[in-house]
């Protein structure tokens, strides 16, 4: 029988993200938590980005996220990428931290995922949980190899598939369609049906792909814009606030490309 650790046993964490987390965690006596965004490829999880919780509550010993943020973040992910799990800090722990019973309850609700806890000294412990149980997962902080770096494949001029550059032709041809079907389904539901006589036109929702300028990897988060919106910039900023909790962010809007680049925001962020 194949053991879980033979299928998936490590998570690769790029140093630029790890340093960002370190800066945030060490500067705060209260807990912080981040959603982990990345790709599950062969025997490893590759981390491409982190999105900090939009906290409903936060103290030295607990954090409570906003359920709307989680739903909107998942919806904004480009095809291929997944919300892999959660990283959170235990500023009160020194040395190797461990998960609390509250953590374990949350993870069981989350379902399959990677859960990382870091202490105030940035020691860490990682667990991969699935329906088959939980197992310790090796967390490796290192630069991504060329084959692990994200590459974008633009499909039909509309969808930006993000996959590791080393995906084989076979993997790409097989899996891309599954990733694509997820976003097509999502966008169909968000679309509009214009009915005329015995015919109808499906109009997919308008969107703006948002990229963080400081991120080493260009991850386009898709925000859906309502057709009757007069001030696109204002709406984009509002959704950015929902998803990333960035305040007063400076944006460059490239309307023709349906893209927005977040230049900088207020406070410390990742």
């Amino acid at each position, binding site marked *: 029988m194949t053991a879980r650790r033979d299928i998936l046993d490590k998570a690769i964490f790029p140093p630029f993200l790890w340093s960002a987390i370190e800066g945030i965690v060490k500067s705060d006596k209260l807990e912080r*938590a981040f959603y982990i965004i990345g790709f599950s490829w062969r025997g490893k999880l590759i981390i491409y980005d982190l999105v900090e919780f939009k906290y409903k509550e936060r103290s030295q010993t607990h954090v409570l996220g906003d359920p709307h943020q989680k739903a909107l973040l*998942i919806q904004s992910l480009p095809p291929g990428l997944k919300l892999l799990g959660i990283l959170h800090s235990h500023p009160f722990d020194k040395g190797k931290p461990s998960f609390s019973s509250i953590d374990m309850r949350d993870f069981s609700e989350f379902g399959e995922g990677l859960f990382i806890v870091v202490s105030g000294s940035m020691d860490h412990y990682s667990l991969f949980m699935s329906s088959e149980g939980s197992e310790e997962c090796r967390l490796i902080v290192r630069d991504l190899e060329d084959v692990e770096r994200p590459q974008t494949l633009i499909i039909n001029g509309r969808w930006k598939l993000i996959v590791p550059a080393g995906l084989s032709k076979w993997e790409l041809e097989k899996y891309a369609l599954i990733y694509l079907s997820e976003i097509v389904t999502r966008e169909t539901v968000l679309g509009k049906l214009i009915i005329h006589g015995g015919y109808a036109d499906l109009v997919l929702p308008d969107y703006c792909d948002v990229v963080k300028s400081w991120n080493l990897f260009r991850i386009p988060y898709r925000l859906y814009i309502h057709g009757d919106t007069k001030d696109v910039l204002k709406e984009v900023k509002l959704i950015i606030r929902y998803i990333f909790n960035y305040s007063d962010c400076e944006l460059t809007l490239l309307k023709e490309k349906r893209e927005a680049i977040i230049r900088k925001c207020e406070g410390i962020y990742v």
Partner: protein
Amino acid sequence: MDVVLVLDKEKTVAVEKKEEEIVEIPEVVTLYFQRADNLKKTISIKTTTNDMMERVVTLAAEKLGISSGRIGLTGGGVPIAFVGKTVGEVLREYNTVSFHISSADMLG
């Protein structure tokens, strides 16, 4: 009355007025709920427009295996405020029958 801008083939702009559309929602409706973190988990609930949305969302969360009391509802790409509203009010306000449910992550 809405004012609608129409671009014709010569790219000139014409203005026409359209009667405000009256949205007719049947008394019995089917709402679709998906777990935001697991889109394979989808359920549908038949209800009436007079029913309280909070009751329907709680039922949907239970059926989707979400036990947390802190639930968020999104639809049409935006957060939905449903507390104290009827199903009909939510459908009129947000113009969708498809919703995502997620629970708040609480860590200690």
